[in-house]
């Protein structure tokens, strides 16, 4: 079992957080021992590849609870729009985010734009903590070379997407959101579409993305796109691990 001290969560959540991952060589014994050896922490998550679901029993026996399933996919070509989508898309544009766009994005995130991640859905975390994670993540990705793009609908700032080149011809679509005032306008598909179209326009041969089973909209959108399944994993988590 690999364990990482998620030091960035001290900034985001104000808590000591560790992230563990089950490895192919893990057994019930190594997982049990790994959990017993975890440092004192406020919150620990364990990622279990679906192929190793048999190890979830020992994880649950140690107080961890199921939180979400993560699915990683790869989009290998620009999605095709039908006639209606193509007309609709003419009213939507994207541009590299300005400083003011960035400020608006962070304000929207802090006002509760994202509600489907395991931190937002966990009553032990406050809405401010959950929003802080996204703001911290966006800033970390920008520092790693990520690109934040603003989405305009009928010339009004309506959302954003965040992408990053990860290899010579591979990109990741990391995060996208439609602002609250624009959420009943059918834009969800298009912000994802524009993120993928942008990456392919930059020479990407494939664009990877990961979404949570708690985010039904993202599951549907990626089901509608031509995607290749890369991997799936279950996430378990536990609050407060104190040493006796």
């Amino acid at each position, binding site marked *: 079992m690999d364990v990482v001290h998620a030091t960035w969560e001290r900034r985001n959540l104000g808590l000591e957080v560790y992230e563990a991952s089950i490895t192919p060589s893990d057994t019930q014994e190594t997982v049990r021992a790994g959990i017993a050896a975890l440092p004192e922490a406020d919150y620990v998550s364990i990622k279990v590849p679906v192929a190793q679901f048999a190890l979830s029993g020992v994880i649950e026996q140690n107080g961890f609870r199921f939180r979400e399933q993560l699915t990683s996919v790869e989009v290998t070509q620009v999605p095709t729009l039908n006639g209606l*989508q193509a007309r*609709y898309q003419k009213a939507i544009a994207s541009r590299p985010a300005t400083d003011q766009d960035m400020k608006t994005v962070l304000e929207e995130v802090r006002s509760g734009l994202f509600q489907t991640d395991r931190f937002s859905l966990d009553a032990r975390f406050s809405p401010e903590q959950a929003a802080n994670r996204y703001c911290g993540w966006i800033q970390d990705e920008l520092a790693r070379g990520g690109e934040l793009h603003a989405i305009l609908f009928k010339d009004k700032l309506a959302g954003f997407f965040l992408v990053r080149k990860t290899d010579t011809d591979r990109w990741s679509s990391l995060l996208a959101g439609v602002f609250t005032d624009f959420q009943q306008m059918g834009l969800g*598909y298009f912000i994802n579409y524009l993120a993928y179209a942008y990456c392919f326009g930059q020479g990407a041969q494939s664009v990877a993305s990961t979404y949570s089973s708690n985010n039904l909209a993202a599951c*549907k959108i990626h089901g*509608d796109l031509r995607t290749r399944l890369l991997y799936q994993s279950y996430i378990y988590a536990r609050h407060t691990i104190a040493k006796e």
Partner: protein
Amino acid sequence: MSTVDQYKAAFINTFRVPSEEVEALAYQSIEQWDSLGHMQLMSELEDIFKVELDIDDIIDFSSFAKGQEILGKYGVALNG
């Protein structure tokens, strides 16, 4: 099939809901009618009634009842 039956069928086919539930439907009143489902419904209606909906009408199409009113603007009379 009457035009109102065709209209109902568009909702049933898109959202897989029972026919007795369609008249009460509104955007996001069911999980299926989200942003993706909305565009699928609009495409279905355009195909059935051979119209091209304006973007503002696509946005305003917020319920089964509102949709009847909007299609009326395109000369689609939903008769039983």
